[in-house]
Structure formats: C-alpha cells, structure tokens
C-alpha cells in the first residue's frame, strides 16, 4: 500500500504510482487539512504530485529520493 492513513496523517510510501492518486484525493477530500507525510516516498507519479499541487495539504517529511526532495518538494512548499 503506497497511501496509508495513520492517526490523521496520510503517509505516502515507496513508489507512488498513478493508481495512488485517487485514494490520496479521497483522503484529502474528506479532510483538506490532513497532513501528508513524504518521509518514505521514493517516486511520486505526476498524478499523485498533481493532487498535492492542487489541494495543497500541509506536508511533512523529507523523501530519501533526491529528485523528489530537491526538485518536487520545493514546488509544493
């Protein structure tokens, strides 16, 4: 499971593929202020990124992946 809700924090983990965009959206539509944790994200499919980009939930964590950390997260913050 790449999208997981735990104690009101949405965790994105590992390879987040295109199919993860919908569950993420559903979780954020339910509560726009849920924090999304990116501490264990390796890949972020554009569709998943787009959900974060459009809905702008609070984010936490630093992905171990250089591209995600250095290139994508700055765009979301």
């Amino acid at each position, binding site marked *: 499971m790449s999208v997981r809700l735990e104690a009101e924090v949405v965790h994105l983990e590992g390879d987040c593929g*295109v199919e993860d*965009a*919908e569950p*993420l*959206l559903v979780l*954020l*539509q339910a509560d*726009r202020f849920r924090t999304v944790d990116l501490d264990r994200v390796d*890949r*972020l*499919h*554009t*569709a998943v*990124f*787009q*959900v974060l*980009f*459009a*809905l702008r939930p609070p984010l936490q964590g630093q992905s171990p992946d250089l*591209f995600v950390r250095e*290139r*994508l997260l700055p*765009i979301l913050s």
Partner: protein
Amino acid sequence: MDDLLHHFIVEAKELIQQASDDLLALERRPFDPHRLDSAFRAVHTLKGSVGLFDLKPLGDLLHAAEDLLAAARADGLDLDAAALGALFACLEASERWVGAVEANGDLPPDAPEKADALAAGVRSLLDTPNPSLAAVASRADAAWADALFDALRGSDPAAAASGRPLTAIRYEPRPDCFFSGDDPLGLMRSVPELAALKVSARDPWPPAGSFDPFACNLVIEALSGAPHPDVAAVFRFVPDQVRFLVRDAEPAPAVASAPSGAQGPDSGPPAGPRTVRVEAGRIDRLADLVGELIVAKNALAHLVDAAGRVGEDVDWTGKLAAHHAVIDRLAGDLHAAVVDVRMLPLRDIFRRFPRTVREIGARLGKTVGLTVSGEDIEADKTVIDALSEPLVHVLRNAIDHGVEPGEVRLEAGKSPEATITLRASRFGNRLSIEVSDDGRGIDPARIRRVAAERAVVAPDRLAAMSDDDILDLVFTPGFSTSGSVTDLSGRGVGMDAVRAAVESLGGRVSVLSRPGHGTTVKMDLPTSVVMTQIMSVEAGGRVHGVLMDSIIETAAIRRDRIAPVGSGRAFVLRNRTVPLVHLSALLDGPERDSLAQDVKVLVVRVGSEPVGVAVDRFIDRMDVMMRPMTGILAGAPGLIGTTIQGDGSVLMVLDIAELIG
C-alpha cells in the same frame, strides 16, 4: 590579482580569439550561419562579463559589435568588408584593452574616446533604426524561457552563469496522458543536467470536490545544462507536447568553475593564466596509474610485514627486484602521463596568427595571407608558451622586411598578395616550425654591408664568412637591416631575442633565403622539456646546482671524525672509508674552512665508489628546466648546463662525478 578579474582576462582572451576565428572564416565564406552564431555568442558573452567590472568603454564597444552581429543574424544582413573591418577593429581594441587591464589593472586613458569612435563606426553600418527588431519579434513567444532564466539567475546564479548554453523545456502533457502510461515528472527526472524545474496549472483548478485526478492539468517548464539533442531525446515519445528553446550562455564570470583559491595572491608567477585545459582521458590515465601505484605500494607493505617475521626462508633479492620493477614501470608511466597532460596542440598559439598577420599587413599596407599546417601537433606547455612571442616576431619580420610592397611584387611577376606559410612538423620528439614568406629574400651583400657598418663582426672575419654564415648574422644582438624603422619591427625584441628564446628551450633556429623568392626561418625544438631535479648548494661563497641523481645521501660529519689520508682527507661512514673533497677545491675556488662543528657533505657515487663532497650549505631541492651549455662553456668538463632561477640569476649545474674524475 583579484581572482574574478583573473578569470575574466583568461576568458576574455579566449572569446576574442573565438570571435576573430569566426570573422576570419566569414571573410572567406560570408554566409556561414554557424560562424555568425558563434561570433555573436562570443561577443555577447564577453559583453556580459565586462559588465561585472568597471570597464564601460569596453562594454560600449562590444555592445555595438554585438548589435551589428545580431542584425546580421536576424536579418541576414551581409557582413561586407566594411562591417568585417569594423568588427575586427573592435576586437583588436578589445584585445589590447584586455591586455592593458591585465598589465595595469585598467583601460588605457584614451579608451572612452576610442570606444566612442569605433562604436559610432559600427553603428553607422546599421542603416535601419532598429535592426534587431526582427530578432526581438522572433523571441517574443519565448518569454516563458526568459522568465525561467531570470528565476534561475535568482535562485542559482552559479548554474545560470555556467557559461554554457541552456536548453529551456516547456512540456504541456495531454490531459489524458496518464492513460497512455505517461508520467511527465518521471520524464523530467531523466532530463540530463536539470538546472531548474517549474510546475504550474494549465487551467484554474476546479473545486476539490470535482477534481479529476486522472486528467493532467500541469504545465512543466525546466532548464537543462545539457545540449538540446540530449534533452530532446528524453521527450522523443511526446514530441507533440514539448517545446525547446536554446538560450545562449549567460556571461560567465567563471566564478563557478574557478579553481580553488587556496593559493595566496603572491604564489606562482605573477603573469599569465596558470590554467591548463586537459582532455579528460589523460586525467583518467593519471588516476589509473596512481591507483596501480597504490596497489604496488600495498604489496610492498606486505613484503615489509613478511620481512619482520623471523625464520622465513624468502628470496628477498628476487622479491625486492620484482617489486622494484613494478614500481619502476609505474613511475615511468606516471611520468609519461604527466608529460602528456602538459602537452598542448600548437593550435593554441597558431590560431591567433591569421589575425596577427592580417593586422600587421593592414598596418603596413600589404596584403598577406597565412597558410598554417601542423597545428594539431602537440608540445609541452612550456614550449608552446615560450614560442608564441618569438613566432609573432618572425611573422612581423617576414611581413615587414620579407614581403615587398604590392607594386614591387607585380613588377617582379608575383601575385600582389603575399603568402606566408607557417608549417609545423614532428620527427620523434623533435618539433620543427618553419615560417616561410614568398618575398624578396635576404641579400647577403646587404647583410655584409650593414654588419660592417655596425661593426658586428671584425672586418677580416666578415670577409672570410660564407653567405650562409652571413645570413646567420641576423640573429646577432643589435642587428637590424631594415632601411626604415617602422613601428612594428626594428624595436623591442629582435631576431637575437628569437634565437635566445628558442635556445633556452633547447632548440636551434636558422634562416634560409632565396633572393627574389623568399625567406624561411626554421626552428627546431624539443616537444617536451625535461625537468631535472637538482639540489642547490653553496660553496666558496657561490651557489651551484648538483644533479639529485648523482647524490646518494647528504650527511653532516663531525669535524673530528675527518682524518688526513695520504694527500687528502677521509671520513668513515657506516664502516666504510669515504674520501672527502671540498667543492670549492674542485672548482678551483677558495676553500674557506668554516668553523662549524659539522661539515656538510654530499655523498656522491663516482664509478662504484662513494665520495664525500664538502659544501658550506645545502640550500634547496628543486625541479628545473636545464639549458645545455653553449658557447665557450660547451664541453667544459663537469658542467652539465644552466638554469634560470626565480630571481633571474643563472645557476650552473654541476656533474660532480665528472669534476672528480
């Protein structure tokens, strides 16, 4: 010098050279868009760098040149002789001014005035009021790239000013691209040398409740430092959704790529850039060799361990010999690889000669073409660097004295345009460079006359000299046969300086002439200069160099351990009696017995025997470039050569074994 300024000067010279090369090519082939682009980029980049310093006249000048080139680029404006002439004048002034900045830290006082005049000349050629309008219009739809670039300059100035062109990418994925399996940001991940990434929404986002996660509504823009084809390759499956724009390099102040500034401002020679560009493969080779050397060193450590264990029956001689052979080979290879790193193509100095010749010819009212061959031949950086000035002088001489005025040439049945041939060739590790002109040649009778007038040679000797020997007199200090003193030759360095420079590299220079047909100056040089390790020592109040190779060890021997033996003296070193001589005595100089308790001794090998040579002081070990002995000292026993020290004084390098023997 300020590091930034230093890099600016290095770069400015390269850019001016590049622009000159391009313009010379355009002079031959007027409609070469690549050359035009290249010239424009060089001038554009240089202008940008100039802006970092307080050099406004230079900036103004380059701005005008840039406008003219931009107009030519945008409108297909023909760079006719007048335009090329104006541009050459700008480049020539730029080069002089950069030289002035290097030498004095500032532009010459008349620069503002000159810049105005030259810029006005350039602008008069731009007949339309705003010639670069077309260029601006064609860039109008590239505002996105400009915005990206500006953002990059703000966030990462080093990347923005890397000095290389940047490829701007604008990728608008189709809304249904996710269904085709596209992952647009995944593609961005594969973009080589990504420098900036920007994402925006193509259309305003719908309310969260009606958001479609599978419709891509993003516009992705990015900058890459990689060449356009490499970037485009990433997007080959979505060519309909992506646009590229190659941005010229931002003026690079070279800060980002500057070598470490760890050295103090006073270290190293004061003049000239110390940067060498080295092909990556040669560095790799060095790295490989160092790796092997480390392995060999580790193997030696094992051997040391083994030696420490008692009672092992080992063939030490054999093992040590094997290790020595490996390290010996590696040391040799490493030396060769280092020499190779220092090898540069002659092109580095040859490439500016076409313009030099053009300028000198123009100033003297002579049309001269230059043919160059052998520019790919490589030689040690020391040789290359030292050759530049003498060659310019030889070229000047050829144009000034060798080439006849056009009408004289026509009368002689020659083409009015003279040709100078600069030809380099390589035989083994010797380099031959010839400068030939098709001018009037040298008249031996005239040389004889001038030599007699100036009393360069005694009259009886002069009379006895053959014509070939007579020609060689042009290399005599103070000799000049020019009837009229021009502002080009006849001053500053003469042919004697050329000979001195070539000989200091271990080379020879000679001149050949066929009266009426031309003159050839031929230089014969080593391709590499071998650095020799010496130790400098003082004896009898004078400093000498001694080859490190000949020294077994240095020792301080207590005076009371030195005993008279026969007619001389000797001391005991590790149970062996070693004869002792004083270096001053060997050189027939005064032997001053110092009162020091210890006598400083070089132990050298003479034949198979060690001999002690007492000196007053050990000074330093150094790597020097040796000049062989010439003139009356050539062949003097015990003298190997001379070397110029940092302070300009000459150090004699001794072969002690030969002195003793």
